[in-house]
């Protein structure tokens, strides 16, 4: 039931062990996001993640609590990095523990979809073609909207 904002790489194995050790359940789903080596148009070699620390923490905590309530989670964890990242570095890790698989998997999906559009982080890509801020994606806004319309479950 916690959020971490950190500049260090995410230790996926340690996060998993702690999440499950804290409150074992029958079903554990996780998602890890890594830095892509390309964006929509450009090759990417580095990524800078700017964030709004106080708001990021609040948004991620709210969204963890709301996923926990919606899906009856036993536990959850959201870890998000900021600062300088290299290609294939971890960016984000979410984990959910529930009694049944559908709840754990849907909670991870909800946390990721909401995080993408609601958490105050901004990606700045660096590559051979120079630097630019990453534009937000319509597909992310659409995935986010599914949870409000009840289309996703």
């Amino acid at each position, binding site marked *: 039931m916690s959020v971490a904002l950190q500049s260090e790489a995410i230790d996926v194995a340690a996060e998993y062990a702690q999440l499950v050790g804290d409150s074992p359940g029958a079903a554990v789903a996780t998602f890890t*996001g890594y830095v892509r080596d390309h964006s929509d148009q450009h090759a990417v070699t580095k990524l800078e*993640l*700017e*964030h*709004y620390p*106080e*708001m*990021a923490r*609040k*948004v991620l905590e709210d969204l963890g609590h709301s996923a926990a309530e919606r899906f009856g989670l036993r536990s959850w964890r959201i870890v*998000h990095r900021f600062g300088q990242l290299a290609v294939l570095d971890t*960016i*984000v890790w979410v984990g959910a523990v529930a009694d049944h698989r559908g709840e754990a998997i849907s909670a991870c999906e909800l946390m*990721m979809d909401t*995080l*993408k*559009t*609601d*958490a*105050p*982080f*901004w*990606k*700045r890509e660096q590559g051979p073609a120079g630097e630019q*801020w*990453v*534009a*937000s*994606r319509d597909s992310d806004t659409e995935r986010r909207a599914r949870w409000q319309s009840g289309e996703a479950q």
Partner: protein
Amino acid sequence: MVSGGVKITIKLFSALREALGESEFQLDLSDTSEASAPVDVASIKKQLSQRGAEWKEALNQPNLVHALNHKVVFTDAVVTEGDELAFFPPMTGG
């Protein structure tokens, strides 16, 4: 108000911070707001837009997000002393 009036904190992030060259500053609402009318986000955008063409452009882009005390709000949200108001482009984390 001898001690400087009604102050709030303004924060700017990402492309907005970069375009305007500032990340955080204090704004005194008593300077420009009308005596008794409540101050909302729209009126602060108007006040800041008077700082120059780049401010006007940056604060009036269609996708601008405003967060009052760490929560996304519409432009009619009322701002009071001590509040923290942030402006930034759509978020791209995860």
